């Protein structure tokens, strides 16, 4: 009698799961199928496929299928549509800036209880910036997937040609500004520095690092008002303004990434950028240094996450098992070695693979150490994208010389106060 009931239950389970349509896994006969959506290509795409294969080979009860959803820029649209349509994956790679929005959908799994009941994930081993990025109030909306930070990447040859010594860890803003000016030569169309000026988050987050160094904050502690128009903010904005409109030492990139090609062609001397750009500089003998700063050398980190979506208990548990495995120190270090991504856990530095990693990727150790300078994080709010847009417009106007720092920041602060008051 019990056996036939079980049989019927299994049959029903198959039918129900089978009706999931596309993008869905299933649970049948003991083995759980889960689906993972990602945007990796080339080396990373192959590395991910390898990892999945290894996992499947060593975990007979779970089968993970990885699917490329195209460009990660469109990931949110795809996920939203999939959720609305009722058929969505179990794990999906999303940008960190979408954490607060994903936290609002009931389909996103709150990982906090899972962490509490399963300490083997060793949550505090992840860098502080990553943990902050996925924490929305009481919820934890994802598992860290990627971490990076901004450092100073410079062209050694251009420094040599100008007879200048390389940037040191003690560089101040004045040192930086003076160096950029000396390295700018209109006759050869060479610039000392480059800045992404498309008014997007790319424009804002470099400013954030300078703002924090100067002791400022983006919002007040209660997150009810803007705080970036403080003297610290004005100081940071003035540095940008002076370099762009007075020294003319800054190449303003309009968001299409040409700055990377220009740096590679020896037309730009210094960049504030992260590890992801390094493979685009095959022709440059580059050096890496921490960001210049007056009292401190704080930087900013841009973590991305794996968000788990709820497709029922069995699949959720399977997804959790996979993520624990994938982000474990040994596996994560394998991933870093294959792709060049920074370690997502502090303990990865102690693994035997770590020296191989630093040997393979020139200068990467500076980035890893720099993660310790990522002390503050951007606010994790559903309205963050609007805040970012207001700030981006202000910084763009300042860099183009169309507005004065205090005035532009004040106006943006007003907009942000309104945004915060309305909630979302």
């Amino acid at each position, binding site marked *: 009698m019990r056996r036939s009931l079980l049989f019927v239950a299994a049959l029903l389970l198959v039918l129900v799961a089978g009706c999931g349509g596309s993008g869905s896994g299933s649970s049948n006969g003991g083995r759980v199928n889960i689906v993972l959506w990602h945007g990796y290509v080339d080396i990373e795409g192959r590395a991910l496929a390898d990892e999945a294969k290894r996992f499947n080979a060593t975990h007979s009860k779970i089968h993970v299928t990885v699917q490329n959803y195209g460009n990660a820029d469109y990931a949110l649209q795809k996920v939203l549509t999939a959720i609305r349509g009722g058929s969505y994956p179990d794990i999906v790679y999303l940008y960190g800036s979408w954490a607060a929005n994903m936290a609002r959908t009931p389909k996103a799994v709150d990982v906090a209880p899972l962490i509490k009941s399963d300490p083997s994930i060793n949550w505090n081993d992840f860098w502080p910036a990553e943990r902050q990025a996925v924490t929305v109030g009481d919820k934890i909306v994802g598992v860290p997937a990627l971490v990076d930070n901004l450092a100073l990447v410079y062209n050694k040859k251009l420094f040599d040609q100008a007879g200048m010594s390389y940037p040191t860890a003690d560089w101040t803003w004045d040192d930086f500004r003076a160096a950029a000016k000396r390295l700018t030569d209109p006759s050869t169309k060479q610039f000392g520095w480059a800045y992404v000026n498309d008014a997007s988050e790319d424009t804002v987050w470099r400013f954030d690092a300078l703002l924090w160094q100067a002791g400022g904050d983006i919002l007040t502690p209660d997150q009810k008002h803007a705080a970036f128009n403080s003297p610290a903010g004005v100081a940071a904005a003035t540095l940008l303004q002076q370099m762009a409109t007075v020294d003319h030492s800054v190449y303003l990139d309009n968001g299409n990434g040409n700055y990377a090609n220009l740096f590679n062609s020896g037309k730009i001397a210094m960049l504030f950028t992260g590890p992801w750009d390094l493979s685009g500089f095959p022709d440059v003998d580059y050096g890496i240094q921490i960001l210049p700063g007056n009292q401190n050398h704080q930087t900013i980190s841009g973590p991305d996450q794996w968000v788990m979506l709820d497709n029922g208990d069995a699949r959720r548990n399977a997804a959790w098992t996979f993520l624990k495995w994938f982000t474990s120190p040994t596996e994560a270090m394998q991933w870093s070695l294959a792709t060049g991504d920074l370690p997502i856990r502090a303990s990865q530095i102690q693994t035997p693979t770590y020296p191989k990693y630093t040997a393979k990727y020139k200068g990467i150790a500076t980035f890893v150490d720099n993660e310790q300078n990522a002390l503050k994080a951007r606010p994790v709010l559903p309205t963050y994208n609007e805040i970012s847009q207001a700030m981006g417009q202000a910084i763009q106007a300042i860099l*183009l010389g169309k507005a004065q720092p205090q005035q532009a920041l004040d106006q943006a602060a007003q907009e942000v106060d309104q945004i915060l008051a309305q909630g979302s």
Partner: protein
Amino acid sequence: MIQRALGSDHLAGWLFVLPAVVLIGVFGILPIGWALLLSFQHNDLLTAPTWVGVDNYRTLVHDPVFRDSIRRTLVYTALFVPLSVGGAMGVALLLHRPIRFSRFYRTAVFVPVATSTVATGIIFNWLLEPTYGIVNFLLDKVGLGPYGFFQDPDQALYAIVAMTVWGWLGFDVIIYLAALQGIPEDLMEAAQLDGAGRWATFRHVVWPLLSPATLFLIVWSTINALQVFDEIYVTTRGGPLRATTVLVYYLYNQAFELFHAGYAAAAAEVLFLITLVFSVVQLWLGSRRVHYSS
């Protein structure tokens, strides 16, 4: 017999259009109805929506960024339509009469239309780059510039006009070539036998006979111009300083970057009304001026 013929025209007419009406009804009209409902909600597509009546519309009216985006869209349209349709007519006339290499020229003119927006964006970014681009380089040789193009808030929209006219001209040319193909050769000969010069032949024979195609292209180009998005997305992203934030860009930003889908739907309805008014007026004016078959 005439009565019967007229009577069954109704049945035949509806049978002929039925498949199209059903398909467009399901895939066109239904989604638009849903979008209309959406415009009466606060909806971020992730959580449960709330009904807010005409609140979104009221906010739109007071939104300076929205009003500016309408203005920019109209400016863009007022430039794009005459340039692309007029230019295309000129090019089509050049290509219509037998000429060597006509096949090559026609293919060349068509290439921009077939090129993906991504590739177009990349190449125009390169051409119009203020410091390193080839256009400023050439202009400098004749003592002009340098211009900011995509990086200058006062020039960006016009640069977009140039880029999109370049991208769409070939499409209009094809339509005109097909239309010119339908002008009977003996009409042209008759006009010339009567002593009409080239300009007069054009004005009194070609232009009127091209008018159905012209009407089509004006209506079609207007609808498209009012919805321009892709080219802006791959180049200026609505900037600098919002100079190229046209209506659909604003709408996209609201829906998919700020999660105000209901608000975006309301903006879309406003766009729909504007487009509808334009099209109806154009078609009505056209019905009086357009010359159909002899």
